[in-house]
Every structure is written in C-alpha cells, then in structure tokens.
C-alpha cells in the first residue's frame, strides 16, 4: 500500500492464518534437493547478501573519497609548497632525492629531466611563491577540523565567524552554516508535517468508517508519488509567491517555503508508518473501551495511541531522516544562501543542496571534492542512525503488541 520504500519497514502485512508460515519454515523439505538444486539454493542465499554488500560499499566508497579529510592528510593552504624555498644557485649542492621531493616529481620523471628543465622548475617555484596571496590566511590549511567546525576571524572580518565559501581565493570550509540550514529546513518540515500526518493517521485508522478508509489511505499515499523535483518546482514557482503574498517576508526563497514543501514530501512517510502502527493495535483494545462507554475518539486517543506510541515515534524519526536527506526540494526552494540566523524567513543552504550544487564544479580528488564527500558521509551517518532508531522503536512496538513486555 505504500508507494515508497520507507513506509514498508513496519513488517509486511501478515494475512490471516499467517502463523502457519512458521510451520512451513520448519516443515520437512519434501524430497531431498538434487545437487543442482542445492547449488541454486546457495546462489539464492548469496544474491540475498546484495543489500548488505551495497550498504557496505556505499560506506566504503563514499568514505574512501572523503578519507583524507578525516585523516587530516589534505592540505588546502595556498603557500604550503613554498614554505621552504631552495634558491636556484643552491641546486648543485642539494642532494638529488631532496631536490626530487622539492619539485614534487616521481623518480622516472626526475631521471628523464635534464638539468635545464629542473632549473626552470625551480625558478617557477620561486615565482609562484612571490605570486601567492599576500594574506595571513593563505598559509592556513582550511581542511583542519578546527576550521571545519570552529569559528575563525578571516582577514577583513571584525569577529570570528562560521563561513562556507569554497570557491573564493581562500577556501573556507566551515560546515556549521550548512548544518544550521539543514536543521532549520528539517525542523520546519517536521513542525508542519508531523501534526497533520499523525492527525490524519488517527482519523483514517480509528475514526473513519471502513468504507471511507478504503480510499482515504491510498489517496493520502498518492502524495508519495509526487517526485521530489516536482515538489521543488511547485515550491519554487507557485508556493514561494503564494506564501510571500500571505506572510509578506523579504526573501522569496527561504527555510519556511522549503520547509513547507519538504513537509509535503514527509507527510506520506509519517502518515504511512503511523497509520500502520495504529492499525496494528488489536481491535479488542478499542472495542473494550467502546464497550465501557467511551467515544471513538476517547478510545483512539487514550487507548490505541498510547499502545502504538513506539510506532508513532518511529514515524517521526524516519520522517526526520527523509527530510534531512531530501535534496531537490531544498536545492530549488531554500534560496541556498549560507546565512546563520534564528529566523525561518532567511534563505538557508543545506548539506544536501550544497553537494548537489557544487560537486559538478570541483576538481576530482581536490579538497573541495573531498569536502563534499565528507558531507555525504555525515548525511549517511545521520540517516543511518535515524533508521536504526526507527527500527528499534518498531521492534519495541512489535514486542509490546505481542505481549512480550
């Protein structure tokens, strides 16, 4: 019934009589498998490991590109190569190995070069040194963690600030503005989506008549079928102007607009999981309450909702994971300015939008490229954890409903 991968995590629907499937598992396997069949069965097992393999590969290969940032072996300082200059006159006196390292050549290259070429290269070094920006910041390796996370007073600023500015003369890689942007857009999305989605889930699963329920649930889940790029388009072209006319704020694209559009994308996720959780509470719970004279609402609010609470938490957590990882909507509707403020009506730039907007322009293997992969690792870690939390909540719900706790 879900049109997305996410909502399905609440255990596949078990049809009536499904307990017998356990018997099927343990049943004697009929005739003994022939050797060929044994091979096929092993192959089935092997192929099933693909999902595990993929998670592992994602972690490995996104992490591999970002590794130099984590290991601290990346250096973005502009004057780094020139900190020790060997004058051209000293060439004869310098040991060959030292000279080779100084010029940054491989052994073969070094051996193939004649004296004159090496001399020219040394001259180039010195010229490059003279042309290096005359700025104290040019010496800084901006890929160190203290510059990535902490504020720094750059030349021309009157106080320490958090700045993400990868394509300026000094590459500034502070990720705090991006974190703030992502959290702001996500918070707005959840603020908008969670009450609506959970309200709708309560209504659809507990209060609506069975016949209404039959079409209401797929109708709400149809929202999941709207591609995120279409949602982004709608936010950019229609919603932004509409909301600006209503609320009258200054910048047309901001965290508020992005949050609303993001919320629209998150609603079906939260709704599906919360609705499944509420439906999985045995009917006898609410029937007992109704028999004691409560109204349907009282039964839903005081009996069913508390019983399904872990599942509802899971819905919110997974909605968070979806919102923070969403790319196209925020890329199109958030304005993409790295502003740190408390106002929802300022433009924001999120982690995901930064990767999408900047990766195409980077040099493969350069510090900007690696920094964007580092953001990817960060996103992967955050969504991994929120998925894990969601799974734990759902298991708790399952355990509770099966009376194991």
């Amino acid at each position: 019934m879900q049109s997305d991968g996410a909502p399905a995590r609440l255990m596949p629907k078990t049809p009536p009589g499904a307990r017998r499937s356990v018997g099927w598992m343990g049943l004697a396997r009929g005739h003994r498998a022939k050797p060929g069949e044994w091979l096929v069965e092993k192959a089935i097992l092997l192929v099933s490991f693909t999902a595990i393999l993929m998670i592992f590969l994602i972690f490995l290969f996104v992490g591999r590109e970002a590794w130099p940032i984590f290991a601290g072996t990346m250096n973005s300082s502009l004057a780094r190569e020139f900190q020790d200059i060997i004058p051209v006159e000293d060439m004869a006196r310098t040991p060959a190995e030292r000279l080779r390292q100084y010029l940054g050549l491989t052994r073969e290259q070094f051996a193939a070069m004649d004296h004159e070429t090496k001399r020219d290269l040394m001259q180039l070094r010195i010229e490059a040194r003279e042309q290096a920006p005359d700025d104290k910041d040019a010496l800084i390796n901006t890929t160190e963690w203290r510059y990535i996370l902490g504020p720094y007073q750059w030349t021309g600023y009157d106080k320490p600030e958090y700045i993400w500015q990868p394509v300026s003369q000094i590459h500034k890689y502070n990720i705090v503005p991006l974190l703030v942007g992502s959290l702001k857009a996500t918070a707005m999305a959840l603020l908008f989506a969670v009450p609506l989605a959970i309200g709708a889930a309560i209504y659809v699963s507990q209060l609506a008549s069975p016949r209404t329920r039959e079409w209401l649930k797929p109708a709400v889940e149809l929202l999941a079928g709207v591609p995120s790029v279409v949602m982004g388009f709608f936010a950019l072209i229609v919603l932004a102007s509409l909301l600006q006319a209503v609320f009258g704020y200054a910048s047309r694209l901001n965290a508020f607009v992005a949050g609303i559009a993001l919320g629209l994308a998150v609603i079906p996720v939260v709704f599906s999981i919360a609705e499944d959780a509420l439906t999985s509470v045995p009917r006898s719970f609410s029937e007992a309450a109704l028999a004691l004279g409560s109204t349907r609402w009282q039964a839903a609010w005081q009996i069913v909702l508390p019983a399904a609470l872990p599942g509802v938490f899971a819905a919110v957590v997974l909605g968070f994971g979806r919102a923070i990882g969403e790319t196209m909507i925020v890329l199109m509707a958030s304005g993409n300015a790295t502003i740190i403020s408390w106002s929802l009506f300022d433009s924001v730039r999120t982690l995901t939008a930064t990767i999408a907007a900047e990766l195409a322009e980077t040099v493969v293997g350069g510090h900007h490229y690696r920094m964007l992969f580092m953001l990817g690792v960060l996103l992967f870690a955050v969504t991994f954890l929120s998925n894990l939390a969601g799974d734990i909540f759902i298991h708790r719900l399952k355990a509770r409903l099966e009376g194991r706790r």
Partner: protein
Amino acid sequence: MSTPRLTQAGARFRTGHFEPVSFFCTGLTGAATLLILAMLALILVNIAWHGAGGLSPRFMFGSADRDMFDVNKAGVGPMILGTAARVILMTIFVIPVGVTTAIYLTEYAQAGALTTRVIRAAVNNLAGVPSIVFGLFGLGFFISAIGGTLDNLLYAGNPQPVWGKPALIWASMTLAVMTLPVVIVATEESLRAIPVGLREASLALGATKLQTVLRIVLPQALPGILTGGILAVSRAAGEVAPILFTGAAYYMASLPRSLTDQFMDLAYHVFVLSTQSPDIEKSRPILYGTVVVLLLLTFALNLVAILIRARVRRSLRQLG
C-alpha cells in the same frame, strides 16, 4: 481480527453518545486529513491547469535540438526516451536481485536467525539512505572505481575515458541500488500473502522445495513482483539527485547510442527548466508541460501498482 459486525457496532456507539471534546477532536483530525488531500489536489490541479494546454504531439515527441527554452521550438522527446532507457535498464538490474532476495527472506530464511536480521536491517537502511548519497556512491564506486578500472584494463593509453565517466549504465545501476528495497518489500509482501497450504500441497505431492518455490509460489506472486517493479520504476523516474553526477546531461545534440553515453532526462529537465531558464515567464508553458509529462508517467504507474495490489489482496483473501 475483527468481524465487520463489531466495527459497525462501534460506529453506533459514536452516534449514540455525544461528547463535545471528542466531537471537536474528531473534526480536527478529519480536517488534517482533508487539508492533506486539499494540498495534493492543489498541486495536481495547478499543474494540470497550466500544463495541459502545452501538450502537443510536437512538444511530446519533438526533439530539443534547438533552443530548449523557446516555447515554439522545444520538445521533450529525447528526455522521455532518456528516462525510459535508464528506467528500463534499471529494471533489468534490480528485479532479479530483488526477487531473489525476497524469495530467500520468505521461503528459506529462519525468522530469528542472524543472517535474516542483518539482511532485513540492510534493506531497511538502504531504503533510508538519502538519494544524493546514492549519487556520490555512483560517482565514487561505479564511475571512479569500476569505470576507472575498466578503462585501465581495456583502454590503457586512451586519453579520453570510455567507462570512467558519467554514463547511462552507471545512472541505471545507481538507481537499481536505490530501488532494491522497493522491489524486495513488494515481492516479499506478495509471497507472504500466498497461502501456506499451496506449498504444503506441492510438497505432499513429492516436489522438492526449490520446485515448489519456482513452479507454485513464484507464478502466484507474479502480480506482486509486477507491482514492485512498477513502484521502483515510478520512484526512479522522478529521481534527479542520484543521476546528477552519474549520467544526466544538460543538453545533448543526439540520442544516446551506447551504454556509455550520457542522456537527457525528463526529471532533470524539470530542474533545468525551473532553475536555469533565462526568462522564467516565457518558458513557463514548457516547464509546466514537462512536469505534466513526468507526473503522468509516475502517477499512472503508481496508480496501476495500487490497483494491482488491491486486486491481488482481494483475490488472495478469498483464496486463504
């Protein structure tokens, strides 16, 4: 499971017993549901209203080889073909793996075993990985690692990369990884819905387990597998983030001829039109037209999947 009669009795309780707070709160949740549906309707009606007029055969099938922002010349033919190509390729990669995993999980796996739990956790996690991370993965793994290696082995000394660059095949593979959980979950659900008695009957007649799975269970699950495939296609057709760096092209003069070519893409084109247009007012009809085509594609697919699933559920309920 409740019988319908009990539910109706419950409904009578509500009508017989009026309580203001309950009445108010029921209205509130109902309003929330209504608001969601209203917003969905707003999106769809707005797009249909502005977009339907722009749909002409020339626009749908015409090429974009001239000015792609010009209302009178633009066409989305190559984009539709590009999207179709990447989605069909993706299906070829994802369906066999997804269905096999689902077969293992329902027919062979032991419920509490470690292997089963790890596979399940991996599937759930894969479903939650942000789409942009899949894009990074496609770039880091398929293009750099696999494509780069292929180039080193097959085309050593060739200055232009052949495999180690954004290409149709890498975009499809990236999407296949992304939609794997969709296929697994849909197939699993349909396999679980097949009555156990059917399998037992087959085994009792002397079939082996594999024979039972392949000849009895799998044919029954075909509509479910179809649903999974359709859902995966509809999900993938609308995705832009994973193909940004793995194959989608801003503009191409010709259609992709081989697996290693880049391609123009419908969903990516929506992004291009809405953010890169020199005059958004002028290109608005093309933009809306493209969105309508994309939505028709994904929505029609989604609707078909929902209908198939509902029908399968109903027939299986009768069977079980």
